[in-house]
């Protein structure tokens, strides 16, 4: 029956764990390409740095003005505007997403129309339109509560906030809708079967699970928003870019101030990225058996894993 005698069948292999087999000592593959790429990249970077340092730029002006009270005010305003318009965007977005998915044809059409309009026109145009809406409405009259001329009511801040917030709501609506649809239908059924209402089901069961899908793109949106606030300088709101430009005009260092603003934007977006990571980790609870490590844990793990082979190396 046995045709191929030379072939070592499974019965020929020894019933393994005898004395521990010798650990593998092999020479790792050398990645020469990586060294070359690194050298090229460093050379390019160095030449760019040299070019900038020899350009006609007064670098000293940047640290001089870095903590200028006007700049700090601009940073504060940028953050405030980012926070508030994202808040409007998120609340509005969830509301629109729920409306869009509702069985009620009226609410779902309204949501569709809103998203169609605000996503279909550039945010810069929307901002300018809000700014000039005084041409349509001369006065604002909320009965006994509030009454004023439109131009006094629509301050640059309110223009910026409404412009950015309402636009963001349209984008957030699509993100939230994707999140709500990603939750398994069985979850809704289970909570309905327990006697929970639509609203309770949404709030307690569906939205918390949708958050896991919603949070990562929302983090992106926040970072985007932080940068988009720079558009608001056109409606006279004194956020970071505008303040930097103002200083640039008066101090005669306009380009330097742009670099300064760019550094501040970079600092803020970096901090936000870290925050986003922890938020994602929070909403991952329950969906994976063990949470992913925090950056700190990861750094520690890498350091040890690099060190260990040297110590343990067989």
């Amino acid at each position, binding site marked *: 029956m046995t045709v191929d005698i030379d072939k070592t069948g499974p019965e020929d292999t020894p019933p393994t764990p005898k004395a521990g087999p010798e650990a593998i000592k092999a020479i790792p593959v050398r990645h020469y390409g990586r060294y070359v790429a690194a050298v090229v990249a460093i050379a390019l970077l160095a030449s760019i740095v040299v070019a900038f340092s020899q350009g006609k730029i007064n670098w000293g002006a940047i640290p001089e003005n870095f903590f200028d009270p006007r700049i700090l005010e601009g940073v504060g305003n940028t953050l405030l505007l980012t926070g508030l318009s994202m808040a409007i965007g998120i609340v509005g977005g969830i509301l629109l997403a729920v409306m869009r998915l509702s069985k009620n044809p009226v609410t779902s059409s309204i949501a569709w129309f809103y998203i169609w309009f605000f996503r279909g026109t550039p945010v810069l145009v929307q901002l300018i339109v809000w700014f000039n809406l005084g041409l349509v409405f001369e006065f604002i009259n909320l009965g006994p509560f509030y009454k004023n001329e439109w131009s006094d009511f629509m301050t640059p801040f309110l223009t910026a906030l409404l412009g950015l917030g309402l636009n963001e709501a349209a984008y957030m609506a699509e993100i939230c809708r994707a999140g709500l649809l990603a939750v398994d239908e*069985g*979850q809704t*059924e*289970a909570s*309905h079967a*327990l*006697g929970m209402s639509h609203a309770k089901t949404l709030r307690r069961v569906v939205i918390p*699970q949708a958050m896991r899908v919603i949070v990562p793109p929302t983090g992106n949106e926040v970072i985007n928003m932080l940068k988009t606030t720079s558009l608001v300088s056109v409606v006279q709101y004194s956020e970071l870019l505008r303040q930097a430009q103002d200083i640039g005009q008066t101090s005669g260092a306009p380009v330097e101030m742009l670099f300064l603003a760019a550094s501040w934007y970079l600092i803020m977006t970096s901090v936000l990225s870290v925050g986003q990571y922890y938020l994602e980790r929070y909403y991952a*609870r329950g969906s994976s058996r063990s949470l992913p490590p925090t950056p700190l844990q990861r750094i520690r793990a890498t350091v040890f894993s690099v060190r260990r082979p040297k110590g343990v190396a067989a």
Partner: protein
Amino acid sequence: MTAMVKAEGVHKSFGHIEVLKGIDLEVAPREVFCLIGPSGSGKSTFLRCINHLEKINAGRLYVDGELVGYRQRGDKLYELKDSEVALKRRDIGMVFQRFNLFPHMTAVENVMEAPVQVKGEAKAVARERALKLLDRVGLSDRAGNYPSQLSGGQQQRVAIARALAMEPKLMLFDEPTSALDPELVGDVLDVMRGLAEDGMTMVVVTHEMGFAREVGDSLVFMDGGVVVESGNPRDVLTDPQHDRTKAFLSKVL
């Protein structure tokens, strides 16, 4: 004594496909009522009609003497509001094939959720009751675990405890052991057997013929959207009268 579930000529279609073609049956209180049949026979759909997860197209369906999903005045039917439907669902527990536990809540939070959110029970009271229920299904040491940290059998037992937390008068089981590894099926069936002994009215869609024979009081064999044969499980399973029942049983037994 009013029947716990009573179906009179229940029809249900999805689009053009008629899934239920006139179901008549009655489930007495404290009875364990088993529904068997090939997949696509409409047994799960019928179960879902009982708590109005699916709307029926024709016929009448009563739970504890009350019409499901509608109110009848004279000879006119009025659709119930969502809140009224929810109110009726409180009394009907349901256990799903895919468990459908809330993954973002621990086992004990899953069980507490409905009493706290629906009945407005105090959290401390609900937690205590939830722990007792988890103990009853043999999972007192798993209260703090998330569903993803539990085996399928454990998840299903948590799901049973979650349904029991609302103190239902009727429990619906939709193939509760079909998604489980064979060695985990026993634990879930044991819990269901215990429930039956305590006198819970249960409608069970199942492929576990052993369970149906041992625990069931009545059994219905469905095929193609109609009830083909019904009666005492021991009689139907050992001595089926219809060819279709015979054919089905010869495949599964």
